[in-house]
């Protein structure tokens, strides 16, 4: 800035008595502190301070100060300024140019990168689906277990993705817990990969499949609504698995499967029925969904449980009896306690 100002002012010198804008600006800044007397400290922030430039600036400033002290003869000031301008032009311009080029390159690169980023990584498209309050999430969780009675009017489904996503992750965590306590051995792959793949695969895959069926059966439901509905339907699965992975009674599992799983399936089915016309279509859609949902719970319980370990071993390894209920090292305390408590409760009832 300093350079340009000097040159511009020098150029404008011939244009008349008007001092260059920078000079007048500087004049203003100079006058204010000088009125107070004593030493004046000038803020040089506005001046473009490039390499090796401050001396030139100081020289220019001192020069200017001297002129303003003596007189207001613009011609002289102009002459001195042009002198200074040229002087600066030689030394400061190179640094200035280099800086400008680098600056421009940086700007262009930054603009390109931010454009690419905003195009591909725009998470703002998902933002409206996460606009919920904790009370709403809690209400929806509880509602997902209550089947609606009114199937003649289309029921409202909130297109929200926070609750379903959190439920899927909770299911993943519960599955991990179940796999760990049953010492499931996964040969090709990892525990975590299997759990995540299973849960997300179910949520996304079955949602897409039912959405496709809904399209065939003329049901009024959008993809986000289907994702949301199925996601909240996993709440029942989470509860069931959380309880039955810790208390290993098959009868208890079947009660939970029918009760809790059945309730959440009924709710999903009722909502879908309310949005479909025609008996055949309703039957197809709801039958498929109910079957898939209930079978998934069954699969989760038996697949990641102690039973499978025995089967895997009989298929591949040495001859071990299946259904081996060997007390494991870790949950030996907790499981024993829970089992005895459950037994006692069952006996008293």
């Amino acid at each position: 800035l300093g350079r340009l100002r000097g040159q511009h002012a020098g150029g404008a010198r011939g244009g008349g008595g008007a001092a260059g804008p920078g000079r007048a600006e500087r004049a203003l800044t100079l006058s204010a502190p000088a009125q107070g007397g004593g030493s004046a400290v000038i803020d040089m922030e506005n001046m473009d301070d490039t390499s090796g430039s401050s001396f030139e600036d100081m020289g220019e400033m001192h020069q200017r100060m001297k002129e303003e002290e003596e007189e207001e003869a613009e011609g002289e000031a102009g002459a001195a300024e042009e002198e200074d301008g040229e002087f600066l032009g030689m030394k400061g311009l190179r640094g200035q140019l280099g800086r400008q080029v680098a600056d421009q390159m940086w700007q262009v690169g930054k603009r390109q990168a931010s454009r690419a980023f905003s195009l591909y990584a725009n998470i703002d498209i998902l933002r409206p689906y996460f606009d919920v309050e904790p009370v709403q999430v809690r209400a929806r969780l509880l509602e997902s277990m209550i089947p609606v009675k009114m199937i003649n009017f289309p029921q409202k489904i909130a297109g929200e993705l926070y609750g379903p996503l959190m439920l899927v992750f909770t299911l993943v965590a519960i599955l991990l817990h179940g796999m760990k306590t049953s010492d499931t051995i996964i040969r090709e792959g990892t525990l975590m990969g299997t759990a995540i793949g299973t849960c997300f695969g179910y949520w996304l895959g079955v949602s897409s499949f039912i959405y496709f069926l809904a399209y065939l059966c003329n049901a009024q439901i959008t993809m986000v609504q289907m994702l949301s509905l199925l996601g909240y339907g996993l709440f029942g699965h989470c509860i069931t698995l959380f309880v039955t992975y810790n208390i290993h009674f098959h009868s208890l599992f079947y009660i939970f499967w029918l009760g809790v799983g059945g309730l959440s399936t009924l709710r999903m089915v009722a909502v879908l029925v309310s949005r479909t016309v025609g008996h055949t279509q309703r039957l197809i859609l709801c039958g498929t969904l109910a079957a898939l949902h209930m079978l998934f719970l069954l699969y989760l319980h038996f697949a990641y449980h102690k039973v499978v370990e025995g089967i895997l071993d009989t298929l591949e390894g040495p001859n071990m009896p299946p259904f081996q209920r060997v007390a494991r090292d870790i949950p030996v305390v907790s499981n024993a306690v829970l089992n005895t408590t459950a037994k006692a409760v069952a006996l008293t009832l």
Partner: protein
Amino acid sequence: FAGLADVSISEDIPVEGEITVPVGSHSPEDDFSTLDEPVKDTIMRDLKAVGKKFVHVMYPKKSSALLRDWDLWGPLVLCVSLALMLQGGAADSKDDGGPQFAEVFVIIWFGAVVITLNSKLLGGTISFFQSLCVLGYCVLPLTVAMLVCRLVLLAGAGTVSFIIRLIVVVAMFAWSTLASTAFLADSQPPNRKALVVYPIFLFYFVISWMILTFTPQ
């Protein structure tokens, strides 16, 4: 500015004095050019920054130092050491019950990314890397718990050791969650803090579970 041509100092006010221009010996480039310093200085500076952040995590006060100068060295070190310690499973593939190094690594970073995205989608004001930094640093108590668990397991693997490990892991898990909540929840609108805290709770729960169920073969 043409109109300012006639703005001038009145001539009876003496304009005098000294102009001292703060010409510092550091022009802006000098401050950023750390190429000339010895390597030891660079490393020590980074180590000090990491150490300061460790202290912030262990005594979580509401300071913004963790947020302001984020760095990912600390999380990397913690993640690698935790993953190494959790890899106690035997090389024998029959007893492949322990998590592999890559598994732990991926869980931590993938989980942190998901939590960050979630908090951004819920309207948080924190940036992506700042959130990663905080979540990574708050794994420190759990790393300490892992160390303690390994030492306890050296002494034996009975019921008593399980109870000790359980207490230690639960305490460290609570500490981790509280520490990260103290830093992250402030960047959220006040009525949605629970929505952000829950995934963090899940994340540290999974890591704590991996630590608790670790049995060296």
